[in-house]
């Protein structure tokens, strides 16, 4: 669906369903230089199992207009305004990587609105290496290749997708290449500069879920420990041998963890 917001058209995937105000709403927030399509399997499942689904393309990403937002705080605020525009009072927030930081910040800012929080591939703080930031600024093709090389576990670098006929590495690379120049650097810088994550975790009052990939080198599991210790009600699910792109590498494990969490 298309939603006018602050003078721009926002696209949000809904699983081809309209919003039913009697149903709970799950919002899926994507990562850096990605879009809603990283959530295809999980979001479609919930859209057809009693939930409203909103998987927006953040400003300047995918099918949404506007410019990418420069900070995690701005993304959290933008998410709030999107929900206000749609008149959605209560939500479950699910975020991946950069999206997980935005979901964390949004949950801390509006504890009464966010009823559950799920963070996937979430390192807090999310320090991005100088080399990757430099590549994203100066040589996006190199940055894309580095990210794809780091985003999938070693076995997945050779494929074995559960989605028939799709080559995960090619999809990951092409999705990054489709983002406009500068988007990746803006997103990575926003992740790197977000210093309030651990304080935000203390302010989160709803139940939280952390899904960590056992082979995630972008957001290693050990870097989720600090945020897990600060969340009041937290469940941690490990996905063994899975890299950062866990929604495509282990779609069923991610979906099952989310389903159990939302029951």
């Amino acid at each position, binding site marked *: 669906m298309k939603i006018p917001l602050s003078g721009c058209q926002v*696209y949000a*995937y809904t699983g*081809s369903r309209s919003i039913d105000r009697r149903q709970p709403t799950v919002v899926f927030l994507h990562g850096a230089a990605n*879009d*809603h*399509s990283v959530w*295809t*399997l999980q979001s*479609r*499942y919930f859209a*057809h*199992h009693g939930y409203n689904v909103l998987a927006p393309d953040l400003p300047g990403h*995918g*099918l949404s207009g506007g410019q990418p937002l420069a900070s995690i705080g701005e993304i959290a605020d933008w998410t709030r305004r999107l929900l206000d525009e749609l008149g959605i009072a209560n939500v479950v927030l699910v975020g991946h990587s950069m999206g997980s930081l935005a979901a964390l910040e949004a949950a801390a800012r509006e504890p009464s609105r966010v009823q559950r929080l799920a963070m996937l591939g979430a390192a807090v703080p999310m320090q991005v290496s100088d*080399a990757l930031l*430099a*590549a994203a600024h100066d040589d996006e093709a*190199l940055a894309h*290749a*580095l990210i*794809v*090389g780091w985003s999938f576990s070693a*076995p997945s*670098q*050779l*494929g*074995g*997708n*559960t*989605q*028939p*006929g*799709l*080559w995960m*590495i*090619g*999809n990951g690379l*092409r*999705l990054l*290449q*489709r983002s406009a120049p500068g988007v990746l650097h803006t997103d990575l810088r926003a992740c790197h500069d977000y210093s309030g994550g651990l304080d935000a975790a203390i302010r989160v009052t709803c139940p939280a879920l952390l899904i960590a990939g056992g082979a995630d080198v972008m957001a290693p599991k050990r870097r989720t420990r600090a945020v897990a210790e600060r969340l009041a009600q937290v469940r941690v699910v490990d996905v063994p041998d899975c890299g950062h792109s866990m929604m495509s590498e282990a*779609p*069923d494990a991610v*979906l099952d963890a989310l389903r159990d969490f939302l029951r």
Partner: protein
Amino acid sequence: MPKPKTPHFDTLALHAGARPDPATGARATPIYQSSSFVFTDSDHAASLFNMERAGHVYSRISNPTCAVLEERISALEGGVGAIAVASGQAALHLAIVSLLGAGEHIVASRALYGGSHNLLGYTLPRFGVQTTFVDTRDLDAWRAAIRPNTRLLFGETLGNPGLEVLDIPRIAALAHEHALPLLVDSTFTTPYLMRPFEHGADLVYHSATKFLSGHGVVIGGLLVDGGSFDWQRSGKFPTLTEPYVGFHDMVFAEESSTAAFLLRARREGIRDFGACMAPFTAFQILQGIETLPLRMARHVENTRAIVAFLNAHPLVEAVGYPELPEHPDHALAARLLPLGCGGVFSFSIRAGDSNARQRGRRFIESLKLFSHLANVGDAKSLVIHPASTTHFRVPAAELEAAGIGEGMVRLSVGLENAGDLIEDLSRALHAAGKE
């Protein structure tokens, strides 16, 4: 600065898409010879049908063995995914019907495999899809042929039989100027010699029967999506950008930003037209692809030796191989095909007292190692004389117009010892020259 660590082509040719079987530990890709796959419960069944979970339902739509092959060719081509189908012709058909409908139009190179020409020139017009054929090398002709209802540009990486080299960067740029995709038949080159997506093509297909397999024991096709074409921005492809009533109002370009075309092709094209690949066929093609880099290098090496021999032979009038300086596409081939121009080419036998058609026939009948048959890309060397076989009813003047001389012979050079092949050709040329 760190360097990306991604597997190389020859590693992908052996491993992409496959993992040791989790149930048995089998290292080779198992042949999942099963029409259908068990659901764990009703919710799982409904989720698979509605594309909420990944997996297999019915082997017409997808199959685990075929899926390994689909991933492997995607990895080798640098695409986002693929669909394995019953033949190269089925792949071409699937590409077209997933994008076009009645009243729409294709611009295609004139230098096409005969079967592709039949589909575009004779069969599809009956369903309302018209094609304008143009000279492969004439960019102005391509441009002039594009109409408001054009939806696809199409050519072969190397034309058949003259080995016209498709200038993919320029044709792709022209296509994209008009918000259209470029479809390329890459059968003759395989991803070892050229990866068309790197030059701007949007969709690639193969007759996997040929070099990808190499063994000549199966018929199969592969259709690969590069994932770069922006269907939404183009605005010319409602099959991908508008709700599809035939699948719960799914908008494929919203469902997948990179693989919308493949979703439609699988969820409609394979589902409804049904030209799927058998898992045993996929297994056999996988066996071939494992050695593709080794075989293609040898095909090219042998071909170069034979081209050099024929080019110096007094009974040979002309050799059509783009690596020769006199070939019209020599410079383009050097740019796009630095590893070689494949193992298929044609040459012409000089007419003597008897006409060239008779000499061609005598040549073919005198060969011992080259097999006389209608195929290319086998590990074994093959030969055909179009004027006495596929085009034997065609008058000489019409043959010339099609670029097929009466003395033209097409070779598909195999993996035998090059000296033995040259000996065979030498003996047959000697026999052909006897009046």
